[in-house]
């Protein structure tokens, strides 16, 4: 079993991080106009590192992930700029068949709703085994054996008997474990988990997050955790990138961000987490609506909802200002936010 678990060394010799997304621009050309879903996202993930990408629906976090995987529907989607470097090579310039080999083996992905992400007409064991048969040409029975080992590894009870069951015969948490087993089958160096716990109830959420963290530790994967739930990431992530309107508005080590957010949006998110000590008080909510991707606000995309807004926020797009080296905030007045009191 150990050779299955053995960790890829990661990093590589090219100098940069394992996976680097640089100034990525993605838009959707629809009948209603051009929706700019991703507007210059830059982030990097190294082996053994967990990056949480946080943002509400439409913030571009999933589109970025789909672009990394190369599963964006094109058209209507279109990558209009930027690079995605994996082991130093730009995936966007790679021919399709080469890129396909990286999927599953180099970079892999866990989807939000495992029930719809698993093929309903095949037993789960068969589907996991298919990963080995597809990429490695493993024999049927050998692949099946490995599939059962993987199901054991993601802690599915009685894995050997359940391998012949179908996705709908499993509970939500178990299904997500199977999805994870498929995703890690070939020891990918990067695992992207797109809202892996959103479809699950709270206790199961914690178990799945724990499993992901453990698998990552064991095999030294880089993990990109996409979520809209601040509570989910606190214990697992190393750093957080907060996205808003297709941009990263704040990037910071996880504890720095929780302790002292440097962007009004992250601050708003943190304050809208229900807290026991504030029971009875009205729960804070960020006012206004998420930006319309077809018609983005001028200047800082967050300005219509921002309590710190000044005149230049309406006209000037803030760059990601570096703060103390390790973090950054795309707010002209990050100092004020960082030092300010609650609300």
């Amino acid at each position, binding site marked *: 079993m150990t050779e299955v678990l053995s960790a890829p060394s990661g990093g590589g010799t090219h100098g940069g991080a394992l996976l680097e997304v640089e100034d990525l621009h993605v838009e959707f050309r629809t009948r209603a106009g051009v929706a700019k879903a991703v507007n210059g996202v830059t982030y990097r993930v190294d082996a053994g590192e967990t990056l949480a990408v946080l943002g509400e629906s439409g913030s571009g976090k999933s589109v970025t992930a789909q672009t990394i*995987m*190369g*599963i964006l529907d094109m058209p209507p989607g279109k990558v209009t700029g930027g690079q995605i470097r994996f082991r130093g090579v730009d995936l966007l310039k790679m021919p399709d*068949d080469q890129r*396909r*080999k*990286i*999927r*599953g*083996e180099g970079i*892999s*992905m866990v*989807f939000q*709703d495992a029930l*719809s*992400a*698993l*093929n*309903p*007409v*095949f*037993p789960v*064991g*068969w589907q996991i*085994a*298919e*990963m080995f048969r*597809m*990429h490695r040409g493993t*024999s*049927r*029975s*050998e*692949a*099946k*054996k490995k599939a*059962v080992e993987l199901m*054991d590894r993601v802690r599915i009870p009685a*894995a*050997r*008997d359940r*391998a*012949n069951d*179908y996705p*709908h015969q499993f509970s939500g948490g178990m299904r997500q474990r199977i*999805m994870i087993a*498929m*995703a890690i089958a070939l020891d990918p160096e990067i695992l992207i988990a797109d809202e892996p716990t959103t479809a699950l109830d709270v206790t199961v959420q914690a178990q799945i997050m724990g499993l992901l963290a453990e698998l990552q530790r064991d095999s030294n994967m880089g993990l990109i955790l996409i979520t809209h739930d601040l509570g989910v990431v606190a214990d697992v992530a190393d750093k957080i990138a907060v996205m808003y309107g297709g941009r990263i508005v704040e990037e910071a080590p996880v504890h720095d961000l929780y302790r002292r957010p440097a962007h009004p949006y992250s601050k708003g998110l943190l304050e809208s987490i229900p807290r026991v000590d504030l029971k009875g008080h009205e729960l804070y909510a960020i006012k206004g609506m998420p930006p319309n991707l077809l018609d983005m606000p001028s200047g800082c995309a967050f300005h219509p909802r921002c309590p710190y807004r000044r005149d230049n926020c309406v006209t000037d797009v803030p760059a990601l200002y570096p703060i103390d080296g390790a973090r950054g905030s795309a707010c002209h007045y990050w100092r004020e936010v960082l030092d300010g009191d609650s609300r």
Partner: protein
Amino acid sequence: MSEPIVTQDLVQSADEHAGSAHPTAADKPRGLWGDTWDILKRRKIFWISLVMLVLFLLMTAFPTLFTDKDPNYADLARSMEGPSEGALFGIDLQGRDVFARTIYGARTSIIVGTMATLATVVLGGITGVLAAYYARWTDILISRVGEMFLGLPYVLGAIIILGTIAPAQSNPSEFMIMTVVIIVLAVLGWPILMRIARSAVIQAKHQDYVQAARALGAGPLRIIFKHLLPNSLAPILVYATITIGSFIGAEATLSLLGIGLRPPVISWGIAIADHAQYIRTGAHALFFPAAFLSACVLTFVMLGEAVRDALDPKLR
């Protein structure tokens, strides 16, 4: 799985996991078809339809097993005689034995029905999957061509094609006329199946598991054959089983018009067409071929339904 090495592995893994010395059924790699068979063999309707199918196939292959009469022997003196001991199903208009002709008719009717359906499924299935998977120009092209065929009235289209290739005065061989009828039915019938396949595949294509398969490195062929097709099979199968029946009926229509199968070919369709006007005076000559036709269609529909149910894991 007969290789000794593999068996050993299975035993080992069984030891590791359950501590038992023998490999159990759980070790056996199973797939869509294996499980489908497991379900099928427990269904009564499947066995009933299978027995009937075997009977019909025997009639097709060895009609002499069922009757020793010559289906073409005619004794006009006995025209339209009712069923009797000597002639179980009676005598038809031309003084021929209805039972013998019904048995011999199975061959052409079943061959025409199944082959035309097979051709339709292959043609319509491939074009439908291509249209749905590649979308855009491929879809537009295939869909428009399909609509052109669909716009052609069935009987009119058949009259034109058959009248050109095999005019009524000509005397084509049995094989030739059957092939032409099969091709005509398939050519005029494929667009409907193409549309069914296309919409089923389009529906499957937008499911998360197709995206997930792509994300995990599956190529177009694997996505089509392992994800799109198995998940689109049910509607195609259901339509195909109904089509077998309607094609046997369509063959009868064409025969009635004198442009489809024609004597000396023996078919249920011809028998029905020949005796449709004698329903009040000699219903037996119409009833028996029609009953066999219905039973045959029912067989295929039941079989198709059983297979469809077995293919759907949620009904297990």
